[in-house]
């Protein structure tokens, strides 16, 4: 079956279609079937891992919009996740607020923070902007820590499982369904947003903001909108994290969390939503895959302590090798594999081939 060339679009419908060919539909159906069957076949641990991946996908897509598409570097991602989680925790703890109230409240707090901490982007770029967003992390960390200390939650705020109508979300399979739906919705929303005037403005900003301004794009509004949209989605991810894990603690949102999310973008492939998804899958599952690989090796018990230390180092080493040897990220590998099959027996895509 031919792969969509991208050259010949005979209708507006074809131009707007997200899925273009029967092969893509078949692949999508197979993916849907696989994702649908997964919770029925997976072990509880694998299911928990999948839920972690889905939570990470939401956060990674949100950061990809801001950094990968709008070109605005942010190191405040863990702060925004924490803001969403603490909004949920505080509302649930202090006011007994239900799920349907804490979710929009978390999004609203994310929007406000995105607007406030997006303001420096109007004057700052690059490393200077990164440092200004770092302030967001430290301010939220300070406020969260103060709340926990002053209110006696020294080991975090414990949350009850949320209730959606008659359903109590206390089962990993239910959470899988919810998180998969939210992750898919966020992905589709982002994919479509990037095809709108706003999304195209972000891409223009990323490529050259001076040219974007010359083309009549309202640079300030576009930058702020990128911060707001990304922050809302990130805060929602924080809210879902809090409910899924059943706790809120500022120690769960360290600067390392931000670094992990940045790593997801770079490893996955900057400037691609699929890259964000692949990066999230890789960064979340990789430490566990190393665990699994090491567990399969016959290591004497007395050497087990050394093995843990080696595993910790191996993660860093493999990340480094990955970045050195595959700068286009997992997306680059995906494209090469896909092209090998799609173009066979030829090796190269024709001129102006779509990616």
């Amino acid at each position: 079956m031919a792969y969509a060339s991208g050259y010949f679009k005979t209708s507006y419908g074809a131009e707007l279609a997200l899925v273009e060919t029967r092969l893509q539909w078949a692949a999508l159906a197979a993916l849907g079937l696989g994702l649908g069957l997964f919770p029925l076949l997976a072990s509880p641990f694998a299911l928990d891992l999948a839920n972690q991946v889905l939570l990470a996908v939401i956060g990674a897509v949100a950061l990809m919009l801001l950094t990968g598409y709008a070109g605005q570097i942010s190191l405040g991602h863990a702060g925004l996740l924490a803001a969403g989680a603490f909004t949920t925790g505080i509302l649930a703890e202090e006011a007994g607020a239900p799920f349907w109230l804490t979710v929009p409240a978390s999004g609203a707090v994310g929007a406000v923070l995105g607007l406030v901490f997006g303001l420096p982007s109007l004057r700052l770029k690059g490393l200077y902007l990164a440092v200004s967003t770092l302030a967001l992390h430290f301010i939220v960390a300070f406020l969260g820590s103060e709340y926990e200390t002053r209110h006696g939650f020294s080991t975090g705020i414990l949350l009850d499982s949320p209730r959606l109508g008659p359903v109590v979300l206390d089962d990993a399979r239910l959470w899988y369904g919810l998180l998969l739906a939210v992750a898919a919705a966020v992905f589709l929303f982002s994919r479509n947003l990037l095809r709108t005037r706003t999304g195209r403005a972000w891409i223009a900003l990323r490529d050259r903001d001076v040219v974007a301004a010359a083309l009549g794009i309202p640079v300030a509004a576009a930058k702020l909108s990128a911060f707001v949209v990304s922050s809302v989605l990130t805060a929602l991810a924080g809210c879902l994290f809090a409910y899924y894990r059943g706790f809120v603690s500022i120690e769960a949102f360290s600067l390392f969390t931000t670094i992990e999310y940045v790593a997801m973008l770079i490893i996955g492939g900057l400037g691609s939503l699929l890259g964000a998804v692949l990066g999230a899958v890789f960064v979340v599952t990789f430490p566990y895959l190393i665990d699994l690989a090491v567990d399969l090796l016959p290591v004497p018990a007395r050497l087990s302590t050394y093995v843990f230390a080696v595993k910790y180092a191996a993660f860093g080493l493999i990340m480094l090798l990955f970045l050195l040897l595959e700068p286009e990220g997992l997306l680059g590998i995906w494209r090469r594999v896909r092209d090998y099959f799609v173009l066979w027996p030829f090796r190269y895509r024709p001129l102006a081939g779509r990616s």
Partner: protein
Amino acid sequence: MQHRTWHRLGLTLAAVAVLFAVAQAQEPYRVGLSAALTGRGAETYAPVSEAIRLYVARLNARGGIHGHPVELLVEDNVAEPSRAAAHAKKFVSQDGVLLMLNASLSSTYPPMIHEAKRAGVPLFFAGSVCPREVYPPADPLLFCSTAFAARYDSEFALDFIKETAAGPVKLALVSMSIPISRGEVDYAEQLAPSRGIEPVSNQSIPPPTPNYAPFAAKIKAAGATWVYAWAPWVTQVKTFEALRQLGWQGKFLAYAHINAEEELARLQDEHFYVFGANAFFSHNLPVHQEILQAAAQGTMHPPTQLAEGWVAGMVLEAVLAGVSWPPTPAKVLAAMNRVRVDTRGLRGGPLEWTPTNHFRTTHYYRVYRWDRRQQGAVLAKDWTAVAIK
């Protein structure tokens, strides 16, 4: 012919019975330990995990519990809540553990507590800071054998400072800026005036601090004559060293984490005191010899850092000894509510849990400092019993 058939059937049944009995005897008491073996806090928690592993290996070599081995599933949570959560879920949903153990930073507590409560499996803090939920009236599922004791530690520390100081005390307080450490030091700050001690500075130091000098400078500028620190070891000792580099001549009281014995020898400062609940190896008790022998089998950690985990191993053995076969989490919980462990000198007295007290009924403190003449750690204050009510 019929006789032969019955004979064969009998032999088959006997063989099945023997196999079943062997299989039953090999069925383990399964417990899961999620520990910070690498990453932040590993210097404190990896030796604890190692000591528990050595203790369990020794226990199994002696025949296990009621003829059944103890299987210790160890996972490295890197002090990350998400990984601790994943481990807890795996332990209860997949591995079917009877009991979960935590030896990690407080950041890993909430997800494990959440999972323990959801599944009704007891959670034993073995080497990590005891959360206040284990104090009377205790949470039904949470237990702790660790030497640290928030609130009680600061009360004892302030009393010690007051009785050791010759005159009025100007006290500076040091914490790491994590809620559990800050909360304790803030409590000490509130408590100090009731002991006739004047708090003059309260420094909360972020975890990734490369330079402790600014915090030390504030303490010195405030005119502190004593400093009390209740934080991870790195924060305590780096602050002390920064103070000495600035020429500060006061006295410093820190919590005796597992590496305190070697650190006193490294610092060799007579005014650096450490207080805690574990006996130093310099006392050379028979139980210390046991630990040294076990460590000789192979460990990358100094044997002097294994006492905390050894106590946890003792408690684990005592708990499982009170659980009849087949074990269930409910039986383990019942055994934990009535356990009494002879710590054989590693602590000042026995460790006892009751249905309402999952910390211990009596807590014992000792204070050590370096002595230049003896070139070793000496007692600044011997065991002091504190009733936990």
